[in-house]
């Protein structure tokens, strides 16, 4: 731990959290979990994707930061319902915080940090997909 932790004064800087959207995959069978979405709605969306109108053999559930616990819960609930196979991967992405000064004599700053992410691929068992 060489880098010293930087403490910002909430009266001096306003924080703008930015996420580079380009680093995410945007296939139709990707489900992104947030802490604001209703849990049941998220589960319904997963079920819809594998049902007849969606017709995907596998879906990928993504989550990051504080939504990790929710993401795992969603994947496990989905497994209980569909008896699918889970393949979990962990990664981390870099996010940038823009610090905008609220006082005149301060410079705007950037701060980068790492946020852990989880990607759970749910694959349906082979027997189920063949009978469809």
């Amino acid at each position, binding site marked *: *731990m060489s880098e010293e932790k930087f403490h910002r004064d909430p009266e001096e800087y306003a924080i703008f959290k930015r996420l580079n959207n380009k680093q995410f995959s945007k296939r139709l069978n990707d489900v992104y979990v947030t802490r604001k979405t209703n849990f049941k709605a998220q589960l319904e969306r997963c079920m819809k994707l594998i049902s007849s109108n969606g017709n995907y053999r596998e879906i990928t559930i993504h989550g990051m*930061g*504080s939504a*990790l*616990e929710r993401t*795992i*819960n969603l*994947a*496990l609930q989905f497994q209980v319902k569909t008896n699918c196979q*889970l*393949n*979990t*991967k*962990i*990664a*981390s992405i870099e996010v940038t915080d823009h610090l905008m000064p609220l006082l005149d004599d301060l410079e705007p700053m950037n701060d980068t940090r*790492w946020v*852990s992410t*989880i990607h*759970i691929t749910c694959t349906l068992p082979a027997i189920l997909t063949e009978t469809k």
Partner: protein
Amino acid sequence: MDAAIEQYAPTETHNDTPTVSLSLPYSIHPSCLHMQVRSGSKAKNLVQFAIRKLAPSDQNSAHIEQITWNAFGDGISKAIACAEMMKRRSTVDFYEYVQIGYKRIEQIWQPVNLDVELDTLKVNKDIPAICILLSKIPLPNLTAGEN
């Protein structure tokens, strides 16, 4: 329902298996280091400890080939952060396997008001848990074997 819950207070929590991780589909090397991550633990301390164990300075201590990071509930994001930090900081390339599952926690709820006749409740909670296996030894590919 809402009124009823006020009549109870959680007294004790039974944690059947506080240390045992989720079952992994691999046989684990005997030297494996099991790390338990809680939401209160400092990620820095855990990673430093694990890295020191992984690269021992004296010859007497056992060589560690595998590490598991275990957590449930609030500690999940910290466990992932630890594993990621470990991967970033050490020079070795790790083989990785992640297992997720539920951990069951039993809680006993006692009635608050002793004047009213109420039974003691036993509550089972399923809490999401994670186990991250980092291995220096190559892990067999599970999906390839099943096809």
